[in-house]
């Protein structure tokens, strides 16, 4: 395996050996290690000292299911801390097949020009780009697919990334030419700051992955794949209803954040829920079950058609539907689907854009529930108007511009779709993860609400600190493997599945890891990230939820009762 390094300051490319310290890292573990080692934590995230790192996971390119997630890392312009965001799509497996363990992009071009990068078996070409500037992600993907063929991997930024907005994401082409996003933390702005509009990947004649013991790997992968299909969540519920099945259960449990986290239930929930979405998709000849990369056997994604049966959007997730739906009091799934499609095309993180719209509604710029108004505002972001530039920089920036204090963020990043008072375990994760409010960093909802991996009362603070800590560690390991987080439902409930992961590491890399070594990987990833954030200026005061969590939230009148001292214990290990 090798490292590809691109320096945009002098438009040069080098190929490097993988240093021993990075050999057993992949995905988030590798992006965070590289960012921590090579990026000055105090640097301006949009300046020349920041680096953008792409890394497939440890298992990318192998036969194990759901192993095609791509990690992207940098210092985040949204949070000011270290960032890893991962996505499905067609890129990670291409990197792996090329034998590329990471692509590191550094520097900023001197000339006022834009570029595109083509990655292939002999290295990287850096070319000037003019044609697709100002265009959306769909057009980039279609144009590149036409130019290089169906099998080309594409990573692209939309207008939001070109404007270097803090909510800009990086879009990755999926097998059908739709979009998956490395959504959070403004990584699209970092790519834009380096003046790269898109990156294409051609894995023809790549060196391929190395595998120490093929047979042993195959055996373990079979056990793992079987466990995914046998678990009722990854085998039945996710393929059928997708993630949006969560609307109803969170609503019933009183944890669906409604009207910018004022209530835990939304009157319009039934109109935007997963069951309704499934019926709508089927009645319009969409596809309810779709995988975001080759080899995904859970296939939680879907394609959602409009009323005329024409493709509208894909990868239409619970978080997006919650954010623009219950969060903003919009109860029309078709409007939310249009907003999702626009965010994908412009290259905006849907959670942070939804958080921004909640703040805009607080400010009185839009009435609550005004879905068409949100569409107009997203259009402003696309056009790059002055208002659009404010909105595109996220909830904190927008709140400051308009004097709003009720801002649903931690470390500048929007709190996702579970109220921290009614689902306390996830609140602990929001407050303490290195990433800024991020549900995927330690998904305590599984144990608090879904009864997977145990059952801990969401309304009681008992056990939540430990739960979040353990999940944050386990997640850092999973994120390094390149496995989709949704394998965790089976892994948490099935010992053979969790042991299979260790067996696969050992078979592929010739190691002799125990379960403890696997969790040590997660611990060391977190320690690296914590140290970076500390050096960037973060203190325990940044590990706090917004002030409004002191108010109680109906229907359970739940309050946030986890103390700061308790929060400060989460990442002590």
């Amino acid at each position, binding site marked *: 395996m090798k490292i590809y390094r691109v320096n945009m300051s002098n438009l040069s490319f080098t190929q490097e050996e993988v240093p021993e310290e990075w050999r057993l890292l992949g995905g988030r573990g590798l992006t965070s290690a590289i960012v921590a080692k090579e990026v000055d934590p105090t640097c301006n995230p949009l300046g020349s000292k920041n680096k953008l790192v792409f890394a497939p996971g440890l298992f990318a390119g192998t036969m194990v299911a759901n192993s095609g997630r791509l990690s992207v890392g940098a210092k985040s312009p949204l949070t000011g801390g270290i960032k890893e965001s991962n996505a499905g799509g067609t890129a990670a497996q291409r990197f792996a097949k090329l034998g590329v363990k990471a692509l590191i992009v550094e520097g900023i071009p001197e000339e006022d020009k834009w570029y595109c990068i083509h990655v292939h078996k002999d290295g990287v070409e850096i070319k000037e780009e003019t044609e697709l500037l100002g265009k959306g992600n769909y057009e980039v993907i279609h144009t590149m697919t036409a130019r290089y063929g169906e099998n080309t991997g594409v990573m692209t930024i939309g207008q939001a990334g070109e404007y270097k907005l803090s909510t800009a994401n990086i879009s990755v082409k999926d097998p059908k030419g739709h979009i998956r996003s490395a959504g959070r933390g403004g990584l699209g702005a970092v790519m834009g700051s380096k003046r790269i509009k898109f990156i294409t990947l051609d894995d023809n004649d790549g060196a391929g992955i190395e595998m120490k013991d093929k047979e042993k790997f195959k055996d373990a992968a079979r056990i793992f794949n079987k466990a995914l299909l046998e678990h009722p969540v990854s085998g039945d519920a996710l393929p059928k209803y*997708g993630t949006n*099945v969560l609307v*109803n*259960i969170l609503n*019933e449990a009183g944890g669906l954040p409604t009207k910018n986290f004022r209530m835990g239930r939304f009157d319009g929930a039934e109109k935007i829920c997963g069951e309704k979405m499934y019926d709508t998709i089927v009645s319009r000849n969409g596809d309810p079950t779709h995988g975001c990369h080759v080899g995904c056997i859970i296939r939680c994604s879907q394609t959602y058609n409009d009323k005329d049966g024409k493709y509208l959007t894909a990868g239409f*997730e619970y978080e997006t539907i919650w954010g623009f739906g219950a969060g903003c009091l919009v109860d029309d799934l078709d409007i939310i689907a249009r907003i999702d499609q626009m965010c994908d095309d412009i290259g905006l993180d849907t959670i942070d854009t939804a958080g921004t719209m909640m703040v805009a509604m607080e400010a009185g710029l839009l009435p609550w529930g005004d879905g068409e108004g949100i569409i107009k505002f997203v259009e402003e972001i696309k056009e790059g108007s002055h208002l659009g530039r404010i909105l595109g920089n996220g909830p904190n920036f927008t709140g400051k511009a308009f004097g709003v204090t009720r801002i649903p963020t931690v470390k500048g990043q929007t709190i996702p779709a579970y109220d921290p008072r009614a689902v306390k375990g996830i609140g602990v994760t929001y407050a303490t993860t290195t990433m800024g409010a991020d549900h995927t960093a330690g998904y305590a909802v599984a144990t608090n609400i*879904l*009864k997977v991996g145990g059952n801990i009362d969401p309304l009681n603070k008992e056990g939540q600190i430990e739960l979040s800590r353990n999940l944050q560690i386990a997640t850092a390991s999973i994120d390094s493997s390149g496995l989709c987080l949704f394998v965790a439902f089976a892994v948490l409930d099935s010992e053979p599945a969790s042991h299979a992961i260790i067996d696969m590491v050992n078979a592929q890399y010739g190691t002799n890891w125990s379960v403890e070594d696997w969790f040590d990987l997660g611990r060391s990833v977190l320690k690296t990230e914590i140290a970076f954030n500390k050096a960037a200026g973060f203190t325990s005061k940044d590990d706090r939820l917004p002030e409004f969590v002191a108010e109680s939230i109906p*229907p359970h009148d739940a309050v946030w009762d986890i103390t700061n001292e308790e929060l400060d214990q989460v990442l002590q290990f």
Partner: protein
Amino acid sequence: MQVDVKLFASLREGRFESEKAELENQSRVIDVIKKYNIPLEEVHICLVDGRDADTEHVLQDGNTVSLFPPVGGA
């Protein structure tokens, strides 16, 4: 007594979204599950008035019972 019964995801198939159920006093969650011929192994989560409850939980007039099969996401 009367309780509101709400079904979700695959439990809705061939049944209903929500219904008012007439039950004997002292009925438990399991009686609701039986009343609608829902195979017990299909029910993974029972909420009574939005709080986790086991199948032996004794219901009161006016409760809302929400039943879910295994579901997940993020």
